[in-house]
């Protein structure tokens, strides 16, 4: 039983990692007033670019860096459409997801298409943060990126509430006219938010290909990006609550994996679908009190 719980908690942290990256990334975008539906595509593209760069250069760190750069570029594209041109955010975000997904698949076909076997790389290894202590030691045997994700939570909270940038960000998502009148460049601020967001999302994708899987498949993201969109609402746009939300989702997925091994007779797809169902229920309950950034989805134009 003890082993079950320890294994469960360790897996929860691991599964939550890409969700934390993705959701924090989306948090920056939405707090600035932009619903970024390009997240699914950005995570997928980040996973691919990271993998391809790592496979090509033999260096995992270069792969990670390349992934982050790809996320930044994705953020810039969203900025061009939603901020500078003021295009409908729903459709442009989805268009970016479709484009980046197609680009990644295309790129994969070009670079690895001729391989008969699924290519793989030597992935990141896990770091034992607390040595070999029983229980906690096992739980805290995670990939480096997982620790980074956990650290990012308080860092993002600090940025949002204790820096000038965070103040401006919170302001522009609620009232861009006021922010503009205060002399802050709304377009630049939103673009920076999208760049940070894109970079974080791509890191989430790269975690999956460079650490967890050590390879790249077309199903690697599998809708996690959309879950992040839901998680943000569930977390009421607060970084600390993002952590708990990601743990909840990770927990349900992890539970499903553990229960499979115990031989409980339930269709495994039900478990895979469970987190999504839980999210919809959670949304229905949390949705009533959601504090949407008031200016979200409205492009800002000064005469």
């Amino acid at each position: 039983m003890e082993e079950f719980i320890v294994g469960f908690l360790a897996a929860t942290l691991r599964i939550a990692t890409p969700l934390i990256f993705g959701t924090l990334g989306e948090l920056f975008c939405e707090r600035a007033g932009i619903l970024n539906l390009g997240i699914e595509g950005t995570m997928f593209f980040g996973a691919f670019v990271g993998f391809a760069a790592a496979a090509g250069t033999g260096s995992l760190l270069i792969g990670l860096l390349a992934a982050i750069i790809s996320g930044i570029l994705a953020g810039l594209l969203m900025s061009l459409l939603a901020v500078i041109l003021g295009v409908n955010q729903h459709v442009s975000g989805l268009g970016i997801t479709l484009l980046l997904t197609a680009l990644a698949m295309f790129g994969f076909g070009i670079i690895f298409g001729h391989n008969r076997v699924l290519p793989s790389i030597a992935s990141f290894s896990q770091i034992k943060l607390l040595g070999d202590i029983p229980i906690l030691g096992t739980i805290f045997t995670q990939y480096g990126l997982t620790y980074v994700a956990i650290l990012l939570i308080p860092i993002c909270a600090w940025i949002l509430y204790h820096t000038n940038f965070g103040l401006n960000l919170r302001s522009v998502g609620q009232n861009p006219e006021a922010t503009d009148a205060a002399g802050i460049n709304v377009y630049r601020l939103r673009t920076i938010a999208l760049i940070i967001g894109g970079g974080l999302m791509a890191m989430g994708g790269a975690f999956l290909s460079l650490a967890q899987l050590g390879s790249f498949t077309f199903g690697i993201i599998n809708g996690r990006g959309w879950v992040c969109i839901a998680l943000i609402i569930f977390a009421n746009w607060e970084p600390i609550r993002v952590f708990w939300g990601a743990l909840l989702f990770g927990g349900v997925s992890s539970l499903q994996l553990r229960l499979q091994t115990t031989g409980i007779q339930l269709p495994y797809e039900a478990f895979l679908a469970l987190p999504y169902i839980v999210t919809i229920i959670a949304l229905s309950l949390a949705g009533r009190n959601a504090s949407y950034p008031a200016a979200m989805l409205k492009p800002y134009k000064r005469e």
Partner: protein
Amino acid sequence: MFKYKIVRSPAPVWMRTLIPIAAILLSFIISSIFVIIAGANPFAAFYNFLIAPLSSQSSALEVLVKSTPLILTGIAVTFAFTAGYYNIGAEGQLYAGAIAAAWIGINFPQLPSEVIIPLMMVGGFVAGMLWALIPALLKVYLKIDEVVTTLLMNSIIMYFVSYLLNDYWRNPQSGYPQSPDISAAAHFVRLVPKSRLNADFIMAIVVVIIVYFLIRRTPLGLQMRASGANASGARFAGVNVPRTMLTAALVSGGIAGLAGMGEIAGIQFHLIEAISSNFGYTGIIVATLGGLHPLGVAVAALFIGLIGTGSQTVSLALGVPVYLGDIVQSTLLLVTLGMLLLQNYRIERR
């Protein structure tokens, strides 16, 4: 340059007709970059995309086949968007319709075509509607963003389909994850022998015409357009906006369900996981390119179907990954989105 300035007022007519053409040109120019990366000739690629599919009867008919589900999902999405409801769940609603149609087609082998096909249509429509119900209710009564909920519903039903095909409906003979075949009577009649073009296409055209009249000529249509344009103005004028949106969302789901039914009865004849290759999401591209006008949507669907057919030819002929077609489509969407805004501006002398 400095003698002119950009002013916000409707663009002149000549500029507006130029925009779609410019968008197409720009998209192809951008896509050429990827063609070149893949080591092929851009002109050869675009010949294969746009001309080659129309050069033979069989592939021209195949274009119509590929366009059919896109016409339906495009119309489904258009219907919802018109009322201001962003139905991103057409993909899932399509699957719901496919499941229902397959179930009917498999379990009633004794019924003749005249009975079972309409039954499958009704079943597909209702199933699509039901799958659209929860996000619609959440939006209308709890104001929860429908984009997120419809996306999640898409994921959920994919798992359900996987379960069905690997367990309950696994084909007993082949062992593959595909359902048993539907009865012969449940097949859509083939329109042209030796091609895949079937009555599904007719159904799609009929739906386009019905939806056109619904939106443009009925009170519901006017109420929908009012709700989508300015919900508070519509409410003031006495329109029951929540109910209108709910209706639009459900009918949209139903039409997407019909798309699924069409694939079952016209193309696949049994349920498989890949019954849709992103038709629901591509429907959004089609709806946007078509300017949310039913007739424009039909034309856009044909165009995207053309590119889709062409992308296989391109792939075979030039050794380029087949996803090039997806790149062209999504680039076209983004470029068109950007250029649609140009309709609101004109250049004037200072």
